[in-house]
């Protein structure tokens, strides 16, 4: 979940008023936001945003806009957007995408802004919005990278091309020597962090103006001159690059609306693409690309369980900042420039719900009659548990992830049947348990202080490899027990098994076990049920006890409940 930190006065200014923390807590849910904290010493409000498909809400301006709309029902209008029908004047500002970028990082688009001198707070806030968009929405710059530049130093048109990474050199931000693009990837901190996005290509993306001055090496680093924005600047050029055009258009829309809300004048920039797009080869940005979305009133009624009038729906949408009209029982919404989360009519339904007020919907129970039922394995497990408890055993519960040392090495087994994790976080959690027995032995190894005898059991899942399954693995509902005491042996284990099987009404036979390193040779048996081995029991081999650091003789057993239930 994205979290943002907003200077109080910027936030209140955008809201148009001060609000107490209690008021914020009450109203935040309409933006799926939570007040994460309020640092009154540093005058910073912390906000957590829950909607990962609404990047427009990940900024002070975005949250303030949503709250203001909700309270006033007034939808802000942004006049600087071009569209397929209407093109705004770009006054000679232009980005030209060269064909060389196609297949590497296809698009670069941008806009300019002026009219407000940035102070420290505003600059920090602007960079935070940029970072949220590039990191969370742009997947760590993979799909969106953004640069902010000093507009007055740029000679338009700006050129976006893929160039030779060894021959192209400039002084990157944060350094004072000239480096090639490849050297930046190797030496600059940002190069090390983001260079991998493009370093597999033979040519790297490069942004420069008509004088040949460098703007940046997207998605890695700005130049130290045009790309060095400072406090006191008031004229900016904002450029966004990436492989998915709609995501770039949305990012530009969000940032331009945010900056307009902060008092900037937004200046359109014409973009010439290097390939065909759904919007043509040339558009003027910011550009409204969203198509209207519809939902029938019937869908609204069906989903929400309440009949809302046309007027109620339109007003609800308006509180969500969305222009809506109703014709012939169908709501048509004009998707706001800064949103692109309307995939289906149900997305309109949710906005109607929030705009209308969730509290106004009365809870009511579903009318359908259904029968409650436990799963067969749960029912069978409960029988087994009842018998084991009667035999004096303590039920245990364990984690399913553990280390190779515990699950395999300490058991003296090969581990060929164990399912390992390809990307373990630590070696303590690198394999799914292939058996319950190591868990029971772990208990024994940490419970020397507990009064003997130790009689414990667990019913839980284990996973082993199994070629016959589509996944190549099989998850088994397994039952294991373990008992240790000064005088305990095979006969005790056999008696427990016999008692259990008697009360479960399972006829079984035993078969000698050959070469299972977990048990003392000649003191273990396989349990055969309906012609199939369903489990094993016997005296724990002292080599296993030694590996676990245990010194009390013990017996143990494990049974496949799925097979025994048959």
């Amino acid at each position: 979940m994205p979290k943002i930190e907003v200077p109080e006065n910027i936030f209140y200014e955008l809201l148009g008023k001060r609000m107490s923390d209690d008021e914020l807590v009450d109203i935040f849910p309409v933006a799926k936001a939570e007040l994460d904290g309020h640092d009154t010493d540093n005058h910073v409000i912390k906000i957590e945003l829950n909607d990962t498909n609404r990047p427009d809400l990940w900024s002070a301006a975005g949250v303030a806009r949503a709250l203001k709309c909700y309270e006033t029902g007034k939808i802000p209008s942004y006049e600087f957007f071009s569209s397929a029908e209407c093109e705004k004047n770009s006054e000679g500002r232009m980005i030209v995408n060269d064909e060389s970028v196609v297949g590497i990082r296809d698009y670069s688009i941008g806009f300019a802004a002026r009219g407000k001198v940035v102070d420290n707070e505003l600059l920090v806030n602007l960079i935070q919005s940029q970072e949220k968009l590039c990191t969370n929405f742009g997947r760590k710059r993979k799909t969106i990278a953004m640069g902010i530049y000093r507009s007055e130093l740029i000679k338009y048109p700006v050129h976006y091309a893929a160039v030779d990474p060894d021959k192209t050199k400039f002084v990157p931000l944060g350094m004072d020597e000239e480096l090639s693009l490849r050297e930046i990837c190797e030496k600059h901190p940002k190069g090390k962090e983001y260079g991998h996005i493009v370093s597999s290509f033979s040519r790297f993306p490069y942004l420069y103006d008509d004088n040949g001055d460098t703007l940046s090496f997207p998605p890695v680093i700005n130049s130290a001159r045009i790309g060095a924005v400072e406090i006191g600047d008031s004229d900016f050029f904002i450029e966004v690059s990436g492989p998915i055009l709609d995501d770039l258009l949305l990012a530009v829309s969000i940032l331009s609306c945010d900056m307009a809300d902060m008092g900037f004048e937004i200046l359109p920039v014409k973009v010439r693409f290097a390939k065909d797009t759904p919007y043509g080869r040339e558009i003027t940005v910011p550009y409204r690309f969203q198509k209207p979305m519809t939902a029938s009133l019937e869908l609204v009624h069906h989903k929400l369980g309440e009949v809302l009038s046309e007027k109620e729906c339109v007003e609800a949408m308006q509180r969500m900042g969305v222009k809506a009209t109703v014709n012939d029982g169908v709501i048509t919404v004009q998707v706001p420039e800064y949103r692109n989360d309307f995939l289906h009519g149900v997305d309109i339904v949710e906005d109607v719900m929030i705009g209308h007020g969730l509290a106004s919907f009365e809870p009511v129970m579903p009318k359908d009659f259904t029968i409650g039922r436990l799963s067969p394995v749960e029912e069978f497990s409960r029988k087994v548990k009842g018998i084991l408890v009667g035999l004096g055993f303590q039920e245990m519960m364990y984690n399913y992830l553990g280390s190779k040392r515990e699950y395999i090495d300490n058991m003296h087994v090969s581990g060929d049947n164990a399912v390992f994790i390809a990307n373990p976080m630590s070696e303590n959690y690198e394999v799914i348990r292939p058996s319950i027995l190591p868990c029971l032995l772990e208990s024994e190894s940490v419970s020397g202080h507990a009064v003997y005898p130790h009689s414990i059991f667990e019913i839980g899942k284990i996973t082993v490899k199994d070629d016959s399954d589509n996944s190549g693995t099989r998850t088994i509902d397994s039952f294991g027990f373990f008992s240790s005491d000064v005088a305990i042996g095979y006969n005790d284990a056999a008696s427990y098994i016999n008692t259990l099987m008697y009360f479960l009404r399972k006829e079984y036979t035993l078969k000698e076990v050959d070469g299972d390193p977990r048990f003392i040779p000649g003191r273990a048996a396989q349990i055969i049920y309906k012609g199939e081995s369903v489990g094993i029991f016997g005296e724990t081999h002292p080599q296993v006890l030694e590996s676990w650091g245990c010194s009390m003789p013990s017996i143990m057993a494990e049974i496949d409940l799925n097979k025994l239930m048959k």
Partner: protein
Amino acid sequence: MDIDVKNLHPLEVKLLRYVNAGEDITEEKIISGLGYKVGQCNQAFSWLTTKGCLEEVSRTKKTVYELTETGRSMGAEGVPAERIYAFLKEKGAFTMPEIAEALSLEKSDVGSAFGLLSSKGALRLNDERKAEVAGELPEEIKMQHAILEKAAVDGSLDESTLSEAERKAIAPLAKKRGASSSPFRIQERDVVVYRLTAAGEDVKDAVIKANITGEEFGVLTPQMIQSGAWKNGSFRPYGINAPTSRLIPGRRNAYSEYLQWVKDKLISLGFEEFDGPLVENEFWNGDALFMPQFHSARDIHDVYYVKDPVHAKEIEEPWLSQVAATHENGWKTGSRGWGYTFDHEFTRRQVLRSQGTVLSAHQLTKAHIPGKYFGVVRCFRYDQVDATHGADFYQTEGIVIGKDVNLRNLLGLLKMFAEEIAGAEEVKYVPGYFPFTEPSIEVHIKHPVLGWFELGGSGIFRPEVTEPLGIKEPVLAWGLGIDRMALMHLGLNDLRELFTPDIESVRTRRGN
């Protein structure tokens, strides 16, 4: 008085009944009066003193001569000097070795006895260097014999009861410690005199009043029942508040019992349980839930990948094609889809189930309508393990399918969970966000102990989730965060404790 007379041991009862206020109470008195053994007597004194019924009024030292095994046989056979004298008097003169041989004595003993007797003029050596009688047996030797016989009665002699002559006679026979070769061992003993305290008098009165004699039956034996002996007396009443011994029963695990309780609650509300394997693939773990393949929650840092086999063999049709088309362009769901090219290899990649909703998606393909389903299922999340994050943990999830189920039903359902399962005092709903539901609702509750917290997330499955899996009807989906309530129920504050291997900790754990 805070002593329950029923808790008194018979040794204490009998002693209290026997003694009177103001009189001296000694070991001797109790042993002779009640027939206690020394050990029993000491126990009774010690217990009653601790309880404040007796107090020590004086303590004096006394010396006691304890008869040793050597002393005992000497008393029976006679002291060596006496035996040598009697032998020579009867049989005539003999050499020292002959005497030792005849009487089975050590040569050194014969030598020292001869030395003593000759110095008193009772024996002498003749010309043949044989010993012979020369006079009367000395009084001292006679007295030694008498002392040994006297000591044989009680096994010991109190020094204060001996005459001056007896003291002289016993001196050479006694040693301070060890030396069992001496007939007597000298012991220093304390003589303690006790008196009944005021509290002791009260207890004594209470004992008499309660008609406890100390002769009551203790344990009822099978023999007593068979013989009818129990009819001839009464039973000693036991103190009902005496400390109990610890029993270790066979028991269910307290956390598992809690989960069972949750399951039973859901069963009682008409839900049917589902379950599934731990290894899933990206298709069911995310694609089927309409999470785009590039969604940040599907990153390598959020999901555990299976090392081998890396991929499932196949994804079931028609689900695969329908889901893939939905991602790409919305298929027939009325959605515009995510607008990217669905990756058919990625979708087969195997992962450990990261969310319980995966099983809800599976259930859609086999659900009855109307239907209510749930699962309490283990999930795996790529998280640093700490007090609030486990490597694997339980999620409680479910769905409700019905022709006309809607938001208001969802709110009703959440209210029911909040009240029935969480014991909520107040319920609050707020809009939420999940990639697979729209609308999405979070339910917050005010719990009597925990205060306000988020009980769970829910929503109506997106048509992009249900329709590709063959369901036309609306589906309400919900998940409850019950671990927090489980911790509270068990009095714990660390999630790792739920799966502790420590036997003692599990044995003593109990729910509220």
